[in-house]
């Protein structure tokens, strides 16, 4: 998929300037930059959640998003949280739960899971959608060091196994390095991609 962005504004304030971005299956990109620079906005444009911009977005790849918060359906159990949004069957959902280490938690509701478990559930949901490209928005924020490290290793393994591409939005270059993602820095006002 490729995005050729000319400008993105919220009201009178232009947030993102001219930039071009391309990613394919198997390729890993990380968009780095300080908070408030417009990283999440860029990811929302890529995900097709924000169509109010000037520019062009091409590509017919299947996408899946891992949001900053787990964003689960509180009224459905773990299996339902994978099967309902992705449309996969319950057996596939159980399989993905096992792959992220949540075997035995199938019938639990999100509130009964820890934050780390909820994030792994969100990760399983994203992979269950069978994406060509996975879009992740600060998925390791607000996790303690150990949990974040395990989540990173898990994400890396699943990406390798499924062959999916990745666009990761983060403020932490170490996360990008751990996933072997090519870092792109977002900076300036309005923000553009900066070469380094």
């Amino acid at each position, binding site marked *: 998929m490729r995005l050729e962005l000319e400008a993105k504004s919220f009201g009178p304030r232009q947030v993102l300037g001219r930039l071009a971005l391309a990613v394919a299956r198997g390729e890993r990109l990380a968009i780095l930059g300080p908070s408030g620079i417009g990283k999440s906005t860029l990811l929302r444009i890529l995900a097709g*959640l924000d169509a109010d911009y000037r520019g062009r977005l091409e590509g017919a790849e299947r996408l899946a998003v891992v949001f900053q918060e787990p964003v689960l*359906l509180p009224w*459905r159990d773990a299996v339902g949280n994978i099967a309902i949004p992705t449309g996969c069957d319950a057996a596939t959902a159980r399989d993905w739960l096992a792959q992220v280490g949540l075997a035995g938690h199938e019938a639990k509701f999100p509130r009964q899971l820890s934050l780390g478990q909820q994030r792994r559930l969100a990760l399983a949901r994203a992979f269950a959608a069978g994406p060509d490209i996975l879009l992740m928005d600060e998925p390791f924020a607000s996790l303690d060091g150990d949990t974040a490290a395990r989540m990173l290793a898990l994400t890396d393994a699943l990406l390798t196994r499924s062959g999916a591409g990745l666009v990761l939005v983060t403020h932490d270059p170490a996360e990008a390095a751990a996933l072997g993602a090519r870092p792109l820095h977002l900076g300036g006002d309005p923000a553009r991609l900066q070469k380094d």
Partner: protein
Amino acid sequence: MTGAPKPPALRPGLVPGVLSILAMLLVWTLASQLTDRPQTLPAPWDVAARIMRLAATGELWFNAGMTMFRVIASFALAMAAGMALGLWMGRSRGADQWLNPGLIILLNVPALVVIVLCYIWIGLNETAAVLAVALNKIPVVTVMIREGTRALRPDLDDMARAFRMRPWARLRHVVLPQLAPHVAASARAGISLIWKIVLVVEFLGRSNGVGFKIHLLFSSFDVTGVLAWALAFVAVMLAIDLILLRPWERRANRWRQDAA
């Protein structure tokens, strides 16, 4: 949030509830004995005897059944139309701006006017009766569902869009569970409002049902009969609330409970 679930008390509030009903019966008994005018205020046992007699002849079941049919039909119609309108108005600002004046007018038209107009325009038939009741209730449901729709979580909306969930799945799994408390509240408020209006509709233009019976008893100033019919039907409605609505609400709220 934390650990220990509440001890499984049989029914909290059961004892005060029963005592409060007994106290009301006591006041009624005292008042009826002190006034000693059975035509105006009959004793509770006279009313109870009348209810028994009505039940034994089958008259109670037929007329209460007709009333119940009208309650259910207009309730279903009002909930369906009110939810559709409320969702639409909560989601679309344009729809809200266009439909809101009509909604406010309908909220403020007296029930009696709607009933009379329906009977005149449609005729003295079942359609007019059910429609008149539903029209009185639709704006109330609409307003409650609209408020609930405005409070829907935008992050879940994003999630549903990002995963390309189909409209029906989105409605069923993302939107309706969030609206469940509002739907339950409007159903609860609705059922009691509706059966009161159904009685007026029957009083004015039907030849069966509890309201029609009360009309007949009113012309003969039979207070015992009026009370017998009213109390019998209140009991039926309370039973529905306890047997149907509350268990459904508990089930719909199951996910809110934390198990260990």
